[in-house]
Each structure stands twice: as C-alpha cells, then as structure tokens.
C-alpha cells in the first residue's frame, strides 16, 4: 500500500502510466484481432526508411512535442495557457510560403528567396506572436486565456490574407526538407529531438527553471527576491511562439504547402493536454518538461491507436475528451483529498485492529 503510494507520488508517474496504458491497449487489440501481438513495437526498414507504428507515432507527434516545450513554460510561469499556438503555426507557415513563393502566387517551382530566409522569417513570425501574447499577459495583466484568444482567432486569418486566400504550394524538393527523411529517420523526429534537447540543456545549465517556477508559484515574493516577473513571463510566451513557429514549418513542410485553414488546427488542445498529461499542474508553478514530452507522444499514440482501431477521425475527439476528463478529474484537489482521506481512514481502521 505504502509502496504503491510512493510510486503514484513520483512526478513522472502519470505520464508513464498513461503511456503504458496505451501500449497495453495496442497489444490487446492486436492479439484479439489475431495479429502479431507486438505489432505496435515492430520497426522495419522499407524503401530505405524506418517503418512501423512506433515510428509513425514519433513522427506524427513531433509537432505536439515541440509545442509542449513552449506550453510547459507558459503554464508554469503564468498559470494560464496559450491557446493561440495552433493559429500561430498556421500564420508562420503561411508567412514563410508567401515569402518563398511571392505574394499572390499559388504554386511555384522556383523559390523567390533563399530557403533559409523564408524559414527564419516564419520562425520570427512565431516569436513576434509570442511577444504580443506575452506583452498582454505580463505587462497589461490580461488573463492568459483572454489575451491569447486574440491571436487564436486572428493569426489564422492574417495567414490567409498573406496568402491571398490561396493554398500556396511550394513544388520544390528543398522545401520538403523538414517534413521528409534524413537517411532513414523522419526529419520531424530530429527537429523535435533538437528542440527538446536544447530546452533541457538550457534549463539544466542556467537558473531559468528556478526563475520560471518561482514566478509561477509566487509572483510578488519573486519580485522582492530580485526577479523580474514580467520579463520572465514575457520570455516564456516568446519561447512558446518560437516553438509554434517551428512546429508550423514542420507541418507545412510535410505537405509542401501552406494550407492556412488546416495547418495546426486544434493543436493547441493537444499541446495543453500534453502538459496536463505530463503531470504538470495547470495552476502554474512546478513543471516537468520530460513529463510533457511523454504526454505529447502519449496523445499521438492515442490518436494513432484510435485510427488503427478504425475509429474515424471525426469521432476520435470524443474519446480524447473522455481521457481528458479523467486526467483533469484525477488531478483535482477535491478528488485527491477524497482519496487521501480514504486511505487515512483505512490506515486508522487498521491501527485500531
């Protein structure tokens, strides 16, 4: 009993537990269908690239993982979520493609400027959006949900304007660089890995983690202790925008086009869910980046599994919603209280004999 409690008390318990649950579901499903039971874990090489359900999850989950990095920091520092990331993904992609193709052009084989300039511009656009959000939250003290609602609705539309209401296709192999393969490995996996590793190193080597958590837990006390709470919150939103920008470009590169209406659609929900699944409190404060990343891939695993099981894309959100409800409920203080009381009661009863 006490061992179980110790285990469930660990920070990474929730995300790892969920991940294992999804894996088990896969094994059982495969076994029940008479497939090879470990289908889920099989990785093979076909046509010179890695292939398998696991690889697919890692690949498709890249965008969520990248977004989760920024979202984790935002949640921690400001006790709120950035709901504009999906729209910002779309805007970053549209801006990049518009620059590469030229305004008003819907399809191009020739790049109008060096690829790297376009990509950087896209990422910068993400940062710009992050700065806007951060300014509203940190300096004007607007609630994060309300502040980011502005770009949630506006960013996608701005992207559409930039693309002159067109879907811009970049029919040039170089643009596919972020979405295809490097050697046998899908590039998105590498991009996500790079983002996560850089974030982890920065958090390990600087005092940033301490600063962010401190501000997230007690803004006033942090200020007295010499932290610039506003600057730190602003920075978290900028990083979040940056991540959204990168994720947008990866997504756009997969389809070598900027489809303003569809890129990043409802990704903000997955990103927020990843953070919650990672065992992070949405009330801010302490965070665990690794947890969020595991959470991100778990969500993708759920989505992929649902599709594999034959649930249609339209109904999949229903199942996701159920999972969200369970997770949020488990985290709720009232429920936690109830369980700790129950176990205390049991312990008391035991003590009495």
């Amino acid at each position: 009993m006490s061992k179980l409690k110790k285990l469930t008390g660990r920070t990474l318990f929730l995300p790892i537990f969920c991940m294992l649950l999804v894996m088990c579901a896969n094994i059982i499903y495969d076994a029940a269908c008479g497939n090879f039971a470990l289908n889920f874990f099989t990785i093979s090489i076909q046509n010179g690239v890695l292939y398998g359900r696991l690889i697919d999850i890692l690949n498709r989950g890249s965008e969520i993982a990248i977004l989760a990095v920024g979202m984790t920091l935002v949640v921690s520092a400001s006790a709120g979520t950035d709901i504009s990331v999906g729209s910002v993904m779309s805007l970053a992609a549209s801006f990049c493609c518009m620059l590469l193709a030229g305004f008003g052009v819907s399809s191009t084989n020739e790049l109008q400027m060096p690829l790297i300039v376009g990509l950087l511009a896209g990422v910068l656009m993400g940062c710009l959006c992050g700065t806007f959000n951060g300014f509203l939250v940190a300096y004007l003290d607007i609630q994060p949900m309300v502040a980011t609602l502005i770009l949630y609705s506006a960013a996608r539309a701005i992207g559409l304007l930039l693309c002159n209401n067109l879907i811009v296709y970049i029919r040039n192999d170089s643009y596919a660089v972020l979405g295809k393969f490097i050697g046998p490995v899908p590039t998105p996996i590498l991009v996500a890995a790079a983002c996560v590793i850089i974030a982890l190193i920065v958090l390990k080597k600087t005092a940033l983690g301490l600063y962010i958590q401190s501000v997230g837990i007690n803004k006033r006390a942090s200020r007295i202790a010499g932290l610039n709470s506003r600057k730190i919150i602003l920075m978290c939103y900028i990083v979040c925008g940056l991540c959204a920008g990168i994720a947008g470009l990866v997504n756009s590169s997969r389809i070598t086009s900027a489809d303003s209406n569809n890129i990043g659609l409802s990704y903000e929900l997955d990103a927020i869910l990843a953070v919650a699944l990672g065992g992070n409190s949405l009330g801010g404060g302490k965070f665990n980046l690794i947890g969020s990343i595991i959470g991100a891939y778990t969500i993708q695993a759920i989505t992929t599994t649902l599709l594999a099981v034959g649930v249609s894309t339209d109904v999949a959100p229903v199942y996701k919603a159920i999972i969200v409800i369970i997770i949020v409920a488990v985290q709720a203080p009232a429920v936690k209280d109830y369980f700790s009381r129950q176990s205390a009661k049991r312990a008391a009863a035991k003590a009495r004999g």
Partner: protein
Amino acid sequence: MEKNVVLTMRGISMTFPGVKALDNVDFTLRKGEIHALMGENGAGKSTLIKCLTGINAFESGEIHVDGISGPVVNHSTLDAQKKGISTVYQEVNLCPNLSVAENLFIGREPKTRIGTIDWKTMTKKSQKIMKDLSIDIDVTQNLENYSLAIQQMIAIARAVDMESKVLILDEPTSSLDDNEVEKLFVLMRRLRAQGVGIIFVTHFLEQVYAVCDRITVLRNGQLVGEYPIEELPRVKLVAAMMGKDFDDLAAIKTEDKTDYSKAPLYIEAKGLSHKGTIKPFDFEIHKGEVVGLTGLLGSGRTELARVLYGADKTQSGTMKVNGKEVKINAPIEAMNLGMGLLPDDRKAEGIIQDLSVRENIILALQAKRGVFKLLPMSKQIEIADKYIELLQIKTASRETLIKQLSGGNQQKVILGRWLATDPEFLILDEPTRGIDVGTKTEIQKLVLKLAKEGKSIIFISSEIEEMLRTCSRMAVLRDGQKVGEITEDLTQQHVMAEIAGGGSK
C-alpha cells in the same frame, strides 16, 4: 466527560513524511478558560490544532466535544465550525480578492426572502463588527488593499462573530501591535466570561501572562505538561519549552555609546514618497548602525522601508547610496547596490511555497548572480546547509518543500535567503514574527553582530523591547509620515509617548 470541560483530545498522534509531528498528545479545554498552547517552532502546536479542525488527519487518538456523544472527527474547518469550533489559523487564509464584508460572511451570508445574498444587511453588519473593534475601514473594499495586521484583525473578527463553544487563535497577534493586542484581549475576556473556551498560541510570553489561565506545553511533538498559570512562571515556562534553562531576557546589548554620526553614511534619502502610502520623508543611515522604525499599525513603517528598497517606486526625492546618487526602479537594482528586504508578509511576499528549502534559500543570491551563472549544485547545498545549521531551521531535509515547515521555521528560511546574499544594508520587517523565544534572542544577537561587521540595518518590529535591545536610533512614524527621530533616552516610556504623539505636540 467531566462537567465544565468543552473539549478533550486524548493520545493524538500524527506523522508527516519524515517527522513525527505529534506523539500521543493530550489536551483538555474547560469552559470559560483561556488556555495557552506553547512550544518552540515546530513543536506541533499548529498541527494539533489542524488535527482538531480536520485539516490534518490524525492517526490515532480521540477527540470529544461537549454536547456531542462519541468521538468526533472533523473533515474540514466548516465541519468543525458546525460543531462549535471556530478557528483563526496562523497564516491568514481569507480571500484577498473578495471584499472585507464577503470575507466576514463567507459561507454564512445573510439571505433575502427569495434566497439571494442580502448585500445591504451584510455590509451593515460588517460595518458594525469592524466598528466594535474600532477599526476604521471600508468594508466594501477588497481585502488585499489592507495591511497584514488589519487582515489578521478581520480573520479574528470573523471567527469571533460566529457562535462557538471553542475559539482557536493560532498566533493571532504576530503582526499586531500593543493597541490591537489590547483590543483582542478585551474581546477574549468578554468571550471567556460568556463561557467560551479559548486556545491561544503565541510566542509573546507577556501576552500569555496577561490573559491566560492555563498553559499546555509541547516539545518535539510530545506533551510536556499542563499547568495552571500560577505554577509556571516565565523562567520555568521557557525551560519547559526548550528542555533546558535559558534566560531570554539576559541583556544582549552591550552599552556601547558609539557615535555613528562619524561613521560613513550608507544611505542618504531626501524627500522620497509613495502616493497613498507614505508622505515625503528624509532618511539617513550610517555604516554599522541599526535604526528602528516605529509607529502604530498603519503608520507607514513597512511602507517607508519598501520605498527605500524600490519595492514601491518613489515618486519624488533623491537617494544617495555610498555617496553616489541612484535611482531604484525595482528590487533587483536595490539588491545590486547591496540591499536586502525581509518582508513582513511571509506568505504573500516571502516564501515560494512549492520550492524546497534549498531553493528558497539560494533564490535571492541566484537572482543577483543572473540567469546564466547558475550556482553549482554543490555550492547550493553548502549554502543551504550553512543556514539551516546557523539558524537552526527545523526541517526533515534541505529538499523539503518550504510550505511543509512550521511558520517560525519558514521565517528562518527567508532570513537565511537574505543573509546568503551578504548584503551591506538589510531591512528586517518583523524578522522575529512567529519565532520562538530562544531563536528570537539568537536573531537579535545576529543583528548586532552584522552591525559590528559594518552592515547597516533597519529593524522594524511591533515589539518595542526587541527594538530597544538592538537599535541605536529610532525613527517614529505616524499616519504615513515620518514625524521624528529618537536618538537619546531610548526607553520604553519615551518611545511609547513619541509613538502616541504626546511628546512632540
């Protein structure tokens, strides 16, 4: 149950991870008595109270309440309230973003005939409650607009206003000064006469002897004993709490008549002010000097200090530090000039609840070093251990979350945070709030030692004796204005007279 007894707790035990907070503790409260619950920081006083009110779940033992048959187990403060036990916790736990009136009536709002909240009655009743305590505030304002002391009074007023058999006051006087304390005592005596049993926790020994009838002493989670007040004079009480003889009143201030006016000036402020809190003031402090700020509740002691530190931005005047003119826009700038501020509101402005003791201690030093110069872990551990040892912080480990420490120990951690930055100038706003007698003396000694090393210190305390023992000069404040300084004749009577305003006008 004996006649006369309203509450008995028998054999209460409770364990937190790594700490046996209560070990087989008995406690008895009689009708119409004021019962002091005493003990060092971390002795288990608050824990015992929380076991009673259902915030902590105790492992073994029984609680009996007069008029209720069978053992009582409460599940929440509200639950306890229904059984006639109302509580003022150590840390004010009201809602800062609700109005004073709402806070007073939360959970028991007066209703109109159709079942909605009767705002008019609520406001009127609140006004009356506040007026009875002669506290002059606007009850429709949000609670957060008022000082900690007022908030504490409101918490008390709320608890007292409820019909109850048992009233629990856990360090209610920690941020009150003599006037408010006296008001509280009048109230307590009145309730006692009505037959209410009152549990009173405090670290001010004089207050115990002023109102209490009986004392229960805890040490390290164990019961030392229960004594009628006559049988436990001050020296014996201190010995019972600490488990050894100790004279907390021994003179610690050596009568040195250092003339600080010759020492170099550290701070020279002219005409600083902050709208709404403190009117323009001049202030000087020399190196190695300890200056006290004194005045009634809301006189602007805290506010003056905050302006010097840049926690509230000044709107006028000039400030020189070490002879150089400076402009301080934020605390970090003050820190880089060698300043530090131990704030009076520990919960709101001191502790970072969910961080460990180690992280709380190194926070200010790390902020000063900047984000890129992370203190290596070995160094962090060294610093944390140093201050845990020096200030005798009672904690399960250095990685324990600060919110799991007892109130007094949290205070020590924050003090450690500032000592770790090795400041030239330290503002201590109620540094001994909630700290037990033994450690209080240690802190006073520490202040004098720092001064001897050439550091300048502002000392703010609602306890005048404490300031008399450490300060060489005092600035007097009244109604948000600095009205004078006392350099000669630092005695209790003189200072009191100055504070009240009789002396100068």
